[in-house]
């Protein structure tokens, strides 16, 4: 027995030395090739666009139109699953295998840092700088990491307060009032399940309260603050006092929308996509969208959502990919996406379009909300940071953890995540 242990130990030691030897190379800054705006001109060949499921048909229409207008190029849509988490997993599987299958990547705004740091993207700084005048500034922020720009903004998003016009004549302007009125009325629903959505809903309040997750340089954890404790207490009290049903701890976007449409809530926090669908539901005439409420005397600050378009470092056709990605950010396509799929445009001009204004009556509020919205922490370990947030917020909602405990646990877990090498 002893002999085996020694042998095993020796074997492991050798393997260890081998690994150390291998581990020394690599490191340093991000190595990436840069694409210039001129690279897109005269491009030809095939381009595959990998993005989440085309539920509205708008992505396919865009691909068909592009192919008609660009006879030299042939774009193709590869639909990934509907869930953002699984889209990311599937893209990462391909990127780790250095597969050239995906050329243009539809990336949730929170993946930019991770993909860029891993060297999976072309540096698009010159391209974005030429085009960015047309985009809403907060959307451009989501493509930045380490001073460079890694993707073209494609669509954006910000949370909204939906309210029942037959129950509340005037929408409240602060979260404190929303909760008070929800308690009197039929309650508020939001995304309280243990997942990314809860991080977003929590950050909206935290940002409005003036709190932060990381320092501006992304190096230190700043979530252990009185603001965090206060927001957690506020959320916990909401459930305890009945302003929010306990059921929200199982709600995602779709389940909260169903509850609201079934008449089970006076207020709902959700993304704009719920508007068009709600207008086809039983409560079509009885709800509207309000300006995002403020908190603690501050104006409301949303969290930027949406997707960007990155170009895979393993693409066989980066020039053609750039041509296609640029096409997707042009006004007519952006307008089409906005109207057909309620994917809010990143191009400011689209919000002035009379047709858009008529179809989506809250465009002005939406533009304002997106302009004021802040980005989620930019970090290559974002998923772990978010996990630390939603896990601990969730335990507070469930009453299993005090806001104080949750705050310090969150901070230490984010600290651990930042220590990853």
């Amino acid at each position: 027995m002893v002999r085996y242990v020694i042998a095993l130990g020796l074997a492991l030691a050798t393997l260890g030395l081998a690994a150390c030897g291998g581990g020394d190379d690599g490191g340093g800054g991000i190595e990436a090739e840069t694409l210039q705006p001129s690279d897109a001109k005269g491009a030809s060949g095939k381009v595959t666009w990998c993005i989440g499921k085309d539920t509205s048909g708008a992505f396919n229409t865009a691909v068909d139109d592009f192919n008609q207008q660009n006879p030299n190029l042939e774009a193709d849509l590869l639909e990934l699953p509907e869930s953002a988490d699984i889209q990311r997993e599937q893209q990462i599987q391909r990127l780790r295998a250095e597969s050239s299958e995906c050329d243009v990547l539809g990336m949730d705004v929170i993946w930019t840092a991770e993909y860029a740091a891993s060297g999976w993207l072309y540096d698009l700084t010159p391209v974005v700088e030429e085009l960015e005048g047309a985009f809403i500034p907060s959307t451009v922020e989501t493509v930045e990491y380490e001073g460079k720009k890694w993707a073209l903004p494609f669509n954006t998003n910000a949370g909204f307060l939906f309210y029942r016009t037959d129950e509340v004549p005037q929408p409240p302007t602060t979260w404190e009032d929303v909760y008070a009125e929800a308690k009197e009325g039929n309650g508020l629903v939001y995304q309280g399940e243990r997942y990314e959505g809860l991080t977003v809903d929590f950050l909206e309040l935290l940002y409005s309260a003036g709190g932060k997750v990381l320092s501006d340089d992304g190096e230190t954890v700043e979530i252990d603050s009185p603001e965090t404790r206060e927001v957690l207490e506020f959320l916990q009290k909401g459930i305890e006092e009945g302003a929010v049903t306990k059921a929200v701890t199982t709600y995602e976007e779709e389940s909260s929308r169903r509850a609201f449409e079934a008449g089970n809530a006076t207020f709902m926090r959700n993304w704009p996509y719920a508007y068009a669908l709600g207008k086809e539901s039983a409560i079509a005439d009885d709800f509207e969208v309000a300006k995002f409420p403020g908190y603690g005397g501050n104006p409301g600050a949303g969290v930027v959502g949406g997707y960007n378009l990155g170009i895979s470092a393993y693409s066989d056709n980066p020039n053609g990919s750039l041509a296609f990605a640029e096409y997707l950010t042009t006004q007519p396509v952006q307008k089409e996406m906005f109207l057909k799929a309620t994917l809010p445009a990143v191009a400011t001009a689209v919000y002035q379009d009379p047709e858009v204004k008529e179809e989506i009556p809250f465009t002005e509020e939406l533009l304002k909300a997106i302009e004021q919205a802040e980005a989620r922490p930019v970090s290559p370990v974002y998923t772990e940071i978010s996990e630390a947030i939603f896990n601990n917020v969730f335990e507070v909602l469930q009453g299993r953890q005090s806001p104080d405990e949750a705050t310090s646990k969150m901070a230490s877990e984010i600290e651990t995540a930042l220590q990853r090498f």
Partner: protein
Amino acid sequence: MEGKAERLPLPRSRRRSLFREERRLGAAMLVPSLAVIALVAAYPIFYAIWLSLNEYSVITPGLSRFVGLDNYVDALGSSEFWAAMKTTVLFTVISVGLELVIGLGMALVMHEAFRGRALLRAVVLVPWAVLTVVTAITWRTMFEPELGFVNSTLSALSLPGADVVWLGEEGYALAVMILADVWKTAPFMALLILAGLQGIPRDLYDAAKVDGATVWQRFRSITLPLLVPAITVALIFRTLDALRVFDLPYVLTKGANGTETLSLIAQRELVTNRNTGLGSALAVLTFLTVMAISFLYIRLVGGNIRALTKEQE
């Protein structure tokens, strides 16, 4: 004596070498299948063990460092791991136990001759044929708060529990998960036990009847002992499956409210957080747990089978 010696055509040494040759041939014929097993089973296992001894950079691709058993220390030192272990074991014991009882009952009913037996056997298997993910989504929808089938039925009948958030409470969430698993896999258990039942000779029962044994006595002394091999196989299959359960909690609760299983945390570290080292360590620990339990099974119940076959001889 003489005649016997004459009938040995070969000298002793020649016989030995023939035997050795045959053994060598046997070993050679085993090589291809062993190579295949090594390729499909051993390689990934050892690769996972190797991965678990390293830490892989999530920031710089390709960068790694050897950390020895650090990942295991981290895993075993986290309350998350032990909570997942507790949940997994609890889930396995309760769900497999219920499946055994229900499956046995179903098998006994299906074994009786009656009209429409073939149809019943086919129908019973339907839940087993449904994909686990689909099962999970169905159960999740049924237990959706307020709007789901369960809560609206309870409220229509003015029964208590109409306002319980089933998947949002510790305990209830695990109960729903167990229920969904039992619903899906009891038929599988039933099928395996039914196969065992059909292997029991009829005349044993006839003899017992002649001896005046009651129904219960026949079940206790004939059916049950002779079913042990079939039940063992079914139990091993189901226990190993249940210990690795992933899709049910992933869909039902994403692991919230005391439903986080070993596979779920391993997958999260491996895939979502890209902590290849820690994730592999968790996977290896899951693997070891499963191995330990299957050895235990074979030791405890396997010995039983051997004793039984000897008795029959």
